């Protein structure tokens, strides 16, 4: 199977700072790829470039959706169009719609797959009513699948931390992505919650066939989950390989521990 997402020599400059430096990466359909690297390596910037929140300075991003076949160019598209094409993301610092209910948060994810307009809303045409019902049913089903079934009508702000993280994933899944981008999904979780997250991510891959690209600092999670790991430092890719290969790569150890420590270690 050919790659789902291909990134070719992606560069991102902020003024004089090069946050991403000729980054190449590809993700195959159904693959779980982890992106690791020290703080400030450019991982979140990379996600922002992929999802259209930042416009990359140079380079190409292409997506090939299996069923549809064509090669879609993603760079230069606004974020909502990227989501429409099939990339969905979560955020490092949780960004839920705090004053909306849990269900409504997921219903927002259905927005780009539905089309009722102002007139449909005011006159409640048959089409609009059916569509609205479908949005509710589909969103409820996603919440059930992610074990958030008991929170439907609670405000998102009142959810426990772990559930908020899962709700972010639920909301992203509602957009029907082919590739899910998770930005530090296990941040701030206890070992029990992390184990549940591990299970959940594998379930998303196996049951929905969605490929996953994740940024994560929890090495145990990264090692157990990923098919492939990409290591970044100073905006560059310094290593790529299976978990076993990465574990023994001296470059990676240097990047994480610093040169002096790595030599003594």
């Amino acid at each position, binding site marked *: 199977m050919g790659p789902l997402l291909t990134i070719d020599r992606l560069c991102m400059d902020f003024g004089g700072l090069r946050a991403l430096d000729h980054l190449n990466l590809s993700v195959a359909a159904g693959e779980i790829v982890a992106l690791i690297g020290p703080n400030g390596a450019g991982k979140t910037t990379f996600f922002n470039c992929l999802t259209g*929140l930042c416009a990359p300075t140079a380079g190409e991003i292409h997506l090939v959706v299996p069923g549809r076949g064509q090669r879609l160019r993603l760079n230069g598209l606004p974020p909502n169009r990227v989501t429409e094409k099939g990339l*969905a993301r979560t955020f490092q610092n949780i*960004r839920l719609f705090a004053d909306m209910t849990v269900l409504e948060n997921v219903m*927002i994810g259905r927005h780009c797959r539905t089309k*009722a307009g102002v007139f*449909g809303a005011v006159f409640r045409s048959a089409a609009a009513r059916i569509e*609205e019902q479908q949005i509710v049913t589909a969103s409820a089903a996603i919440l059930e699948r992610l074990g958030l079934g*008991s929170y439907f009508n609670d405000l998102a702000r009142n959810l426990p931390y772990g559930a908020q993280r899962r709700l972010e994933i639920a909301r992203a899944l509602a957009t029907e992505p082919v590739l899910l981008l998770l930005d530090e999904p296990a941040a701030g979780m206890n070992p029990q919650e992390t184990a549940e997250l591990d299970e959940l991510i594998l379930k998303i891959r196996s049951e929905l066939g969605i490929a996953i690209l994740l940024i994560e600092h929890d090495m145990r999670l990264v090692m157990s989950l990923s098919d492939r790991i990409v290591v970044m430092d100073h905006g560059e890719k310094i290593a790529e390989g299976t978990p076993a290969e990465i574990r023994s790569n001296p470059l990676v150890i240097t990047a994480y521990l610093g040169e002096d420590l790595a030599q003594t270690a």
Partner: protein
Amino acid sequence: MTDAGKESGGMTTARAVRRSLLVSLWFMFLTLPILVIRVNPVAQEIVWRWRNLFLIGVGSFVLSLVGQFLTHRQTRRTPSLTPGRLAIFRQRCMREPQIYVPFLLCAVLTTLLFPWFFSTYQTNIMTTALMYVVLGLGLNIVVGLAGLLDLGYVAFYAVGAYSYALLNHHFGLGFWAALPIGAGLAALFGILLGFPVLRLRGDYLAIVTLGFGEIIRLILENWNEFSFGPSGIANIPRPGFFGLDLSLAGATVYLYYLMIGLVLFTIFVVNRLQNSRIGRAWIALREDELACQAMGIDKTRTKLTAFALGATWAGMVGVIFAAKTTFINPPSFTFLESAMILAIVVLGGMGSIAGVVIAALVLILLPEYLRAFAEYRMLLFGAVLVIMMIFRPQGLISSARRAYKFMPVPVAAGRNKRHGTAADH
């Protein structure tokens, strides 16, 4: 301060008294030149009105104590998950028919029979208040739902009023023809304003919209050939009633019912909008613009629909305003009007229809009925606003999100399940 005093000893009470003493001393000092010393230039003497000083001292001392007590009670009250007594009472009122049906009937009868029991003057004031209800609900779409702080809302009101006045003056267009045109033109101006401010948020957006409102007013004031400048446009016909010529009193009553109809229509539309796909997109935009875009919502389109739909109501009310007063000129559309409508939305509770309706009625009717207090009227009005914002910053009625019911998961099962997952963690 009974139970509060018991809990933390006499310390808080002593401190409160000391603070109030300072406050009263400060007030006595501040008001000394104005309220105590009076120079009589004729007799060339200074009159010391010590009685005033005493009253101010005692008054500010008591007010400060009461204020401290209330804020203390408010901060001490921890937000609990169980609803308060008031909330339970409100829920009961909403649920039990024997409570809300008579109340509703009363309200409907009062609104319907109002013009027959009160003078033309009272009906006129009520019509004005209803106009502000619609304006408030319109701005509520932009500010309350979509979270776009618009300080130039009055511009769309002016667009509606002037479109009727000018179309009538030049082409002899009637009220009913001008109503949709005025609404449409206002919506168009809403989109025109929307485009340049798409990238702006918060304070910056507020300043640009403020400028936009002033631009419209200044154009109307200075472009004499177009808008007849400061002298305004007179002799605008009142709305026709199937070709009948109504007396002044008749026209007032007619306009009153027209506004009742428009208010009901507005509530109907806004309620449907806010629980729709579009309404959810607006609220998501208000909550987190970045996440909203990342979830696939077209920010441009969502913002523009909010501006356009908000402006539509202002345009409609503008047409009615022109028909009601039969004369319009630029001073009717100053920033003060925008501020008033914004106050209605904030005071009522952002995004809450019932809150905005009540706030509009209170804010417009209060100054009218406070006329008994003559020159203290606006002072009292201001005090009410300040006190409201201190003790209920979320507005009179804060908006509640809609709860959905499901066929596959009954509420009871859902609740049991929550206990299950809680035990799992």
